[in-house]
């Protein structure tokens, strides 16, 4: 599984326009819905927000990975967003988050879901990958960066 296989221009948000947690998640979810794989937006949003209640998915170094399993989607859906000015996502290191990977998958996709989460973590460990994404100004540029990183 490659991230690039899950990404199209329509599920990439550059720049993210909202400044608060739930609106940012909704903005990314709308991009995910553009894939046509989200069958119930309200249920998907609920699953994502329920997951946030367990603990923020804002990690370190500006990375946030809001994620949830729910049968409100068909298969697995990824949306990527860049917020150059950062968003207060209650991240683990107290810093603003500016690089978002929203992942939602059906209950039956456990193995793939974990593999994709691990792949996001793998790629995001690379400083050059994060830096290049943050400099991206269009969905096309984001796609090129992800493709190049996975070549």
């Amino acid at each position, binding site marked *: *599984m*490659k991230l690039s296989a899950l990404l199209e221009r329509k599920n990439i948000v550059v720049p993210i326009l909202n400044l608060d947690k739930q609106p940012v998640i909704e903005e990314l979810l709308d991009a995910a819905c553009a894939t046509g794989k989200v069958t119930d937006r309200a249920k998907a949003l609920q699953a994502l927000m329920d997951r946030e209640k*367990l*603990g923020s*998915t804002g*990690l*370190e170094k500006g990375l946030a*990975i809001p*994620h949830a399993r729910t049968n409100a989607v068909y298969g697995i859906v990824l949306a990527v967003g860049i917020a150059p000015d950062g968003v207060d996502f209650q991240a*683990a290191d107290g810093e603003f988050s500016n690089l978002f990977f929203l992942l939602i998958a059906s*209950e039956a996709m*456990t*193995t*793939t879901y*974990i*593999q994709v*989460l*691990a*792949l996001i*973590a*793998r*790629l995001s*460990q*690379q400083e050059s990958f994060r830096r290049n994404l943050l400099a991206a100004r269009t969905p096309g540029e984001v796609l090129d960066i992800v493709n190049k*990183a*996975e*070549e």
Partner: protein
Amino acid sequence: MESDRLVSKILLFIDGSEGCIYAAKFGIALAKVTGAELKALYVVNTNLLRQLEKARIFVKVEEIDFGRDLEEDGRRYLRHITELALRKEVSIETELLKGNVHELVIQEIKKWNADLLIIGELEPILSKQDTFHDEAEIIFRKAHCSVLVIKNPERVDQIYEELS
């Protein structure tokens, strides 16, 4: 081990990827042709779940939930591969383990005395400092027996379907 056989004991590494199904189909075909013993092994990657929890991507309750669901997934994959083998009248043994995937697969190769390991296509290499590494790649490098990496799914499907 019977020395007059091309291969005697084939171990299939099943990881829940699409590629592992093709690896299994090829292994079934090879076992049918050579008369080799066949075993499918699935390892619940509790190590990766712990890493995801350590990286704060998962909270503890998710680590537990996903561990349980992966185990169910593993059992489902092994049942499916057993059906694929039986459909071609090939005997197969299965085993599900939990822990560090590459360590347990390497151990099983030795313990079962496998002389061929079959795996699906490898994930892309992303970084030398890769914490969330591809387990199959490590197994490929560390296995003490020969390792066959299965590609070309269409051809494998054709080989499997043409088996009598």
